[in-house]
């Protein structure tokens, strides 16, 4: 009746407004939360009475009731219901974690978990269950069910049947009913509940809808019975169980998979197995955002998906790949997907995950190494569908090499972390743009061009929940004004922000101020929440050290972190700059006598120990025995920063991910790059300082809000029991560390400043949380910068467009293209950056069409390109921007770079055109050096090194395409002596290694200049060589043609890889790239194997053969494959016991009994038995699926699904 429903809703709204609004806590609720935290941290508790617990419990019940009202009246998706379930879950969770004595009939955790599941927070549900040790079998069973651990449910169920074999014949239920004894009904109900949960779990996993429906209906009936017969709380539990089960049924991944299969029934089994595999990984129940994403996928539209960190986007991406690559039939060419990632680190992670899930069906290639296409180039010719994982830089290179080929096969574009296309509007970004180092604009450029040229491909953008970027990204990707991102802004865990108050001679105290973006108050006054830590007081540091407040602060953080490791916590100490200094301080501190009481780090056993060892070896290899990194690693502290060699960085990430090292010291590159959540993140400073030597100014860059939020977003690990909330704490000293009077005013000032930095940041965090600001596009920022700078040198607004028609960078400033910082130079370089954007777009078009562009054609194309830029959909841009864009583009073709041949060359080089012109001068010389290196395979180390030195020499002085360092003394000296750095990096004999303190500066030089700039320059020359010689642009570059086409020897092919891995021997680079060795030394030791193979096979032993990649690949193929088949795939024979077998096939679960295995229907009825002492019941066998087959002559049981180890 509609009228009454309205009244019911009003009642519901009253309650929800009173106690259920998201992120608004009443005073008592806040205190309950604080109490829970205090218990978790083992610090003294706030005042709290039993009565208050009862009131909280009562409130939780009210919320649950009200949620039901919402659901009944508004439907299952009711937002009001979700809000109430969440709050109920929270209230119950807090009572549970505070070890509250007030209990209900059933453990509070079960109710909390159920509430969280119904509120769409499965990670919290899982965490809550994980928090408590469940002593009763029943509680454990329901707990497993409520955290969607279906494997666990079946384990519990099987154990039950093993204990009660008398209940497994099909007359058992009747017997129980007839028994009529005291409590007989209750026992009957219990047994039936076990049956139904077992059946539900099994059929849900397998995707057997018909039987699942029956299980659901039985559960419905049982709920009705429970309401009549059990007490309030027990019946409530059953009601909740039923609702959660229903939710699981609706959200099972099997549903969309079945729909997807309709596109290609031949693939149905494979897809079904995929879905089953997801259950095996604990991902079989979809989140709302995933369901929405899959829904869109099935409707064949492009979309943007917004999910919190570490959650469901991988699945959506995977299914998009399945849909666009695996399912289509009748395609002309084998389909291709491009998966864009923001960093090499993330590329590695994505590649590994994809390979493990879809490696059998797709060719998955990561392109993020040194060479511009993978050494294993088979993907280009592959008949199998292919996924290319690439950073934007690599994707650009790909387009230059094989653009037409790529576009012909491309069907799907996935952009990960798509919000990175948003530019931060500040001076630093503008400088980056001028220095051609801004990633956002590269992303905008690449994607816009792709969208303009291949408008029909499916496009998916994946973003984290990053303020305000989602709507414009959605519009951009869908090319629709009214597009809306799919997803949720709900975090999967709670997030707290606060201060770690460090104090000399006292224990630290944590003060928590923000909960999920809002201020947290305990009483209605402005009083933050305190957690006075019980960690031991840090010993007094050596006097010298105490003089630096900053040093004291950092060491306090380390000291506290080391004492917070009892639980499974993962801690990150985030350093904004100069990590080497922090590492050095930490190392020295750990060597102090006073610190020797800290429990030493223990290397774990088994596989984890192996991983640790591998990382340790790599650390020695790349950092040296004496390095800080090694010293800290031996104390269980992992380190990570942007200049670390790739390989080492990845190993460190693994150490962190598997919690082999509980503490990490890292810069922002760690958190930007990979999905690594932490429980606590400490920040020791909120500002970056640098000194501009040229202008003699000190620059202070405060940490931006978005960077802070990205960082804070990594706090909190969904699903982990200690990760129910993530904390980001900024360390602020509360007293001076120095005792000297002379230092007092300085340290006072510093303390005030740190406090102010924090207060300012917090204000912005809270403010930004509430509104979505407009976003800035990088191209708009660039155009704006150009316009502003032009105005400042006297170009009037009315003349601006005309000015653009004819001005060249050289005419603006003699210092163009060398990263100079004068205003004129900046203008010239910004203009050059714009020219790069335009030239690339125009050249791609020219090459595709095969005919020379004229001004009119250029203009027409640019008009359409502009429509596809991010700029078009981001915050309001003005018409003049589009005009400027088009005018300049036309000018490039007609006036600035009118020679089509030159344009083509400049495009191939990959630099911005003005820089590229200068480069042309040295390009030929470099080419000469490369083509002369035919003896490289036979040369000595010294000679090999010389080749690279010669090339480096050609570019060492050019600040545009050549080496570039910061203005510090150290870096300048490095530049002068770069040969030494090269020798060290390439492991040349007798090379001098840097000391521990200089290591990072050397690493930075290697990363920025040797790997990147030198590598780029070589790559540009090689690319030019290839494309000028290749006749057909749609031709597939094959290894066998490589030398002939480019006219260069193998050295040129390897040069970039050599620089990337740090070796003079291509074979070593190959081994490392292919994972055939873990360190350079190991790889070098395998050389002999290859040489032996070479002579055995009878290949010519000349210089070129020794480094021929084709031979390397052949050799690799000749190595024995090294895996064992652990599973005995032969079926086990069985005897029928409880059935006549007429249905022929029965899903079964194994139950371990004396002398054999009983095979039971998941509802607990014994069907067959295998007598054996030999059955290898590996623990957790319930992760797999078994089936009983009744043939004409025999009866067997086979394992039909195996969970991955």
């Amino acid at each position, binding site marked *: *009746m509609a*009228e*009454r429903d309205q*009244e*019911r809703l009003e*009642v*519901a709204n*009253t*309650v929800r407004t*009173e106690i259920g609004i998201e992120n608004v806590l009443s005073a008592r609720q806040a205190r309950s939360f604080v109490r829970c935290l205090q218990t978790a941290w083992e610090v003294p508790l706030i005042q709290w009475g039993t009565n208050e617990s009862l009131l909280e419990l009562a409130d939780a019940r*009210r919320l649950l*009731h*009200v949620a039901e*009202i919402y659901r*009944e009246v508004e439907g299952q998706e009711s937002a009001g219901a979700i809000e109430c379930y969440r709050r109920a879950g929270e209230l119950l969770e807090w009572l549970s974690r505070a070890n509250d004595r*007030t*209990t*209900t*009939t*059933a453990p509070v955790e079960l109710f909390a978990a159920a509430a969280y599941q119904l509120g769409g927070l499965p990670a919290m549900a899982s965490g809550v269950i994980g928090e408590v040790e469940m002593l*009763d*079998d*029943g*509680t454990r*069973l329901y707990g497993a069910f409520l955290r969607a651990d279906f494997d666990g449910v079946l384990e519990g169920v099987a154990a*039950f049947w093993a*204990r009660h074999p008398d209940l497994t014949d099909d007359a058992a239920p009747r017997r129980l*009913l007839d028994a*009529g004894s*005291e*409590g007989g*009904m*209750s*026992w009957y*109900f*219990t047994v039936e*509940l*076990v049956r139904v949960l077992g059946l539900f779990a099994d059929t849900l996993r397998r995707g057997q809808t018909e039987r699942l429906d029956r299980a659901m209906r039985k559960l419905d009936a049982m709920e*009705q019975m429970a*309401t*009549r*017969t*059990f*007490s*309030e*709380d*027990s*019946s*409530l539990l059953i*009601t909740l169980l039923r609702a959660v089960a229903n939710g699981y049924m609706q959200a099972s991944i099997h549903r969309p998979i079945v729909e997807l299969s309709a596109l290609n029934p031949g693939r149905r089994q494979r897809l079904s197995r995929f879905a089953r595999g997801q259950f095996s990984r604990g991902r079989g129940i979809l989140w709302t955002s995933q369901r929405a994403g899959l829904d869109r996928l099935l409707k064949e539209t492009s979309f943007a998906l917004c999910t919190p960190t570490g959650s469901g986007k991988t699945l959506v991406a995977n299914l998009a790949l399945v849909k666009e690559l695996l399912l289509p039939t009748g395609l002309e060419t084998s389909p291709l997907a491009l998966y864009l990632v923001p960093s090499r680190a993330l590329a590695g992670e994505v590649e590994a995950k994809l390979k493990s899930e879809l490696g059998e069906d797709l060719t998955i290639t990561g392109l993020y190494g040194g060479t511009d296409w993978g050494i294993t180039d088979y993907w280009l010719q592959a008949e199998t569908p292919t996924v290319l994982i690439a950073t934007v830089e690599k994707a650009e290179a790909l387009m230059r090499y094989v653009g037409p080929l790529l576009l012909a096969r491309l069907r799907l574009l996935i952009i990960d972390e798509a919000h990175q296309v948003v530019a931060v509007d500040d001076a630093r970004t503008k400088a980056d743009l001028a220095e051609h180092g801004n990633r956002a604009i590269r992303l905008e450029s690449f994607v816009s061009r792709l969208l303009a040229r291949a408008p029909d491909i499916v496009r998916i953008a994946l973003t984290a929940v990053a303020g305000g970027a989602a709507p414009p990204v959605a519009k951009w990707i869908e090319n629709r004004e009214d597009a809306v991102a799919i997803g949720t802004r709900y975090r999967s865990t709670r997030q707290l922000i606060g201060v770690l108050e460090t104090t000399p001679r006292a224990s630290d105290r944590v003060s928590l101020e923000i909960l999920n973006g809002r201020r947290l108050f305990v009483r209605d006054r402005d009083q933050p929440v305190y957690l006075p830590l019980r960690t031991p007081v840090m010993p007094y540091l050596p006097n010298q050290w105490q003089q630096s407040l900053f040093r004291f602060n950092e060491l306090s953080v380390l000291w506290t972190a080391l004492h917070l490791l009892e639980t499974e916590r993962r801690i990150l100490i985030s350093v904004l700059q100069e990590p080497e200094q922090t590492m050095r301080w930490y190392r020295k501190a750990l060597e102090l006598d006073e610190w020797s009481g800290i429990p030493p780090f223990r290397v774990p056993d088994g596989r984890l120990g192996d991983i640790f060892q591998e990382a340790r070896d790599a650390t020695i290899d790349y950092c040296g025995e004496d390095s800080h990194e090694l010293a800290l690693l031996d104390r269980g502290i992992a380190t990570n920063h942007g200049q670390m060699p790739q390989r080492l960085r990845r190993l460190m990430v693994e150490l962190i991910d598997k919690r082999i090292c509980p503490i990490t010291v890292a810069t922002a590159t760690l958190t930007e790059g990979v999905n690594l959540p932490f429980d606590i993140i400490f920040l020791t400073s909120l500002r970056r300082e640098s000194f501009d030597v040229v202008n003699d100014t000190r620059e202070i860059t405060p940490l931006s809000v978005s960077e802070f939020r990205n960082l804070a977003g990594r706090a909190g690990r969904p699903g982990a029991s200690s990760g129910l909330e993530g904390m980001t704490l900024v360390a602020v000293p509360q007293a001076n560390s120095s005792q000297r009077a002379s230092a007092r005013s300085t340290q006072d000032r510093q303390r005030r400043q740190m406090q102010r930095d924090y207060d300012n940041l917090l204000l912005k965090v809270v403010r930004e949380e509430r509104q979505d600001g407009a976003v800035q596009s990088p191209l708009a920022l660039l155009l704006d910068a150009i316009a502003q700078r032009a105005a400042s040198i006297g170009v009037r607004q009315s003349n601006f467009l005309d000015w653009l028609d004819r001005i060249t960078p050289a005419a603006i400033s003699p210092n163009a293209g060398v990263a100079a910082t004068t205003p004129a130079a900046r203008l010239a370089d910004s203009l050059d950056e714009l020219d790069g954007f335009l030239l690339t777009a125009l050249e791609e078009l020219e090459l595709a069409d095969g005919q020379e562009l004229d001004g009119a054609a250029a203009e027409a194309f640019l008009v359409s390109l502009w429509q596809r830029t991010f700029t078009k959909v981001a915050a309001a841009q003005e018409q003049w921007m589009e005009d400027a864009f088009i005018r300049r583009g036309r000018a490039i073709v007609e006036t600035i770079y009118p020679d089509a041949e030159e344009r083509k060359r400049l495009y191939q080089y990959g630099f911005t055109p003005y820089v590229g012109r200068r480069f042309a001068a040295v390009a030929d010389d470099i080419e000469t050096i490369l083509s002369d290196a035919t003896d490289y395979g036979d040369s000595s180390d010294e000679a090999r090194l010389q080749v690279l030195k010669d090339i480096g020499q050609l570019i060492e002085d050019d600040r545009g395409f050549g080496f570039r360092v910061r203005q510090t003394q150290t870096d300048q000296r490095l530049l002068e002596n770069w040969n030494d750095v090269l020798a060290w990096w390439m492991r040349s004999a007798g090379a001098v290694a840097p000391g521990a303190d200089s290591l990072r500066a050397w690493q930075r030089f290697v990363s920025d200049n040797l790997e990147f700039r030198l590598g780029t320059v070589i790559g540009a020359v090689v690319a030019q060589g290839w494309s000028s010689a290749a006749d057909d642009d749609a031709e597939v570059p094959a290894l066998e043609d490589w030398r002939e086409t480019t006219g260069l020897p193998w050295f040129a092919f390897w040069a970039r890889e050599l620089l990337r891995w740090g070796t003079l021997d291509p074979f070593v680079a190959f081994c490392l790239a292919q994972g055939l060795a873990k360190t350079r030394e190991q790889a070098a030791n395998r050389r002999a194997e290859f040489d032996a193979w070479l002579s055995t096979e009878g290949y010519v032993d000349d210089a070129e053969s020794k480094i021929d990649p084709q031979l390397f690949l052949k050799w690799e193929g000749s190595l024995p494959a090294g895996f064992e088949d652990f599973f005995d795939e032969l079926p086990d024979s069985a005897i029928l016991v409880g059935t006549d077998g007429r249905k022929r096939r029965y899903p079964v679960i194994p139950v371990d009994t004396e002398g054999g295995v009983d095979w039971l229907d998941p509802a607990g009825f014994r069907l067959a038995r295998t007598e054996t002492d030999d059955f290898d019941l590996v623990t957790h066998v319930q992760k797999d699926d078994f089936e009983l087959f009744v043939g004409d002559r025999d009866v067997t049981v086979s394992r039909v699904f195996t969970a991955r180890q």
Partner: protein
Amino acid sequence: MAGLVTENYEFVGGHEWSVPIFLFRYHADVEKYLFDLARDAERERAVFGRLGSDFIGLKLDDRGAVVRLIVGEAKWRGELSDAEVETLMLGKWKTNKRNGQRTRRGGIWAEINRDIDVPHGVRQLQRLLRERDRDGHAAAIVSMDKALVLRNPVPIARTNLIMIVGNGKAKRGEGEALLTWETIPEEYTSPHDLQVVEVILKDGEDLIDEIYDLLWKV
């Protein structure tokens, strides 16, 4: 039986009661099977809180809203001796381990006196009403919502019911009551109306068995 009696006899206050749905209730300690997944677990399970009234009935007004509740305890005893009744009403003797003192704990009086305003079981009753006829019972459902969740709801008036069923003691006289009935028993301290029903049977077990058999016939 409580339901039958309530609907068909006149109780204190002269209200007209309806018991739209009968709730069955089992003993507290057998619910623990659900959590132990065993019938004879050795460990003592602490069960806190009231398990719920044995019985709830409603009085509805013309519009169907709930205006009064009758809430009760129904107990069966094989033999209703004086001692048995005393234990029933006042609770069992328990020895305090620390000081050796013996006191009575539990019992129906204690339960009924300290009950919360809205008794447990109302939620379940409401649920069953929704199941049976959501539109027909709409008014009752809403009024129960209000009683259950609003912070300061208009309190629903209430009658407490005690029903004792069992075989009479050997020496029972005709019309002899087990509990005082001319005045309010002094052990009863709750402000609500009280109704006591005593059903004295002979060979009561047979009757009960017959009823249960009828119910479970398939």
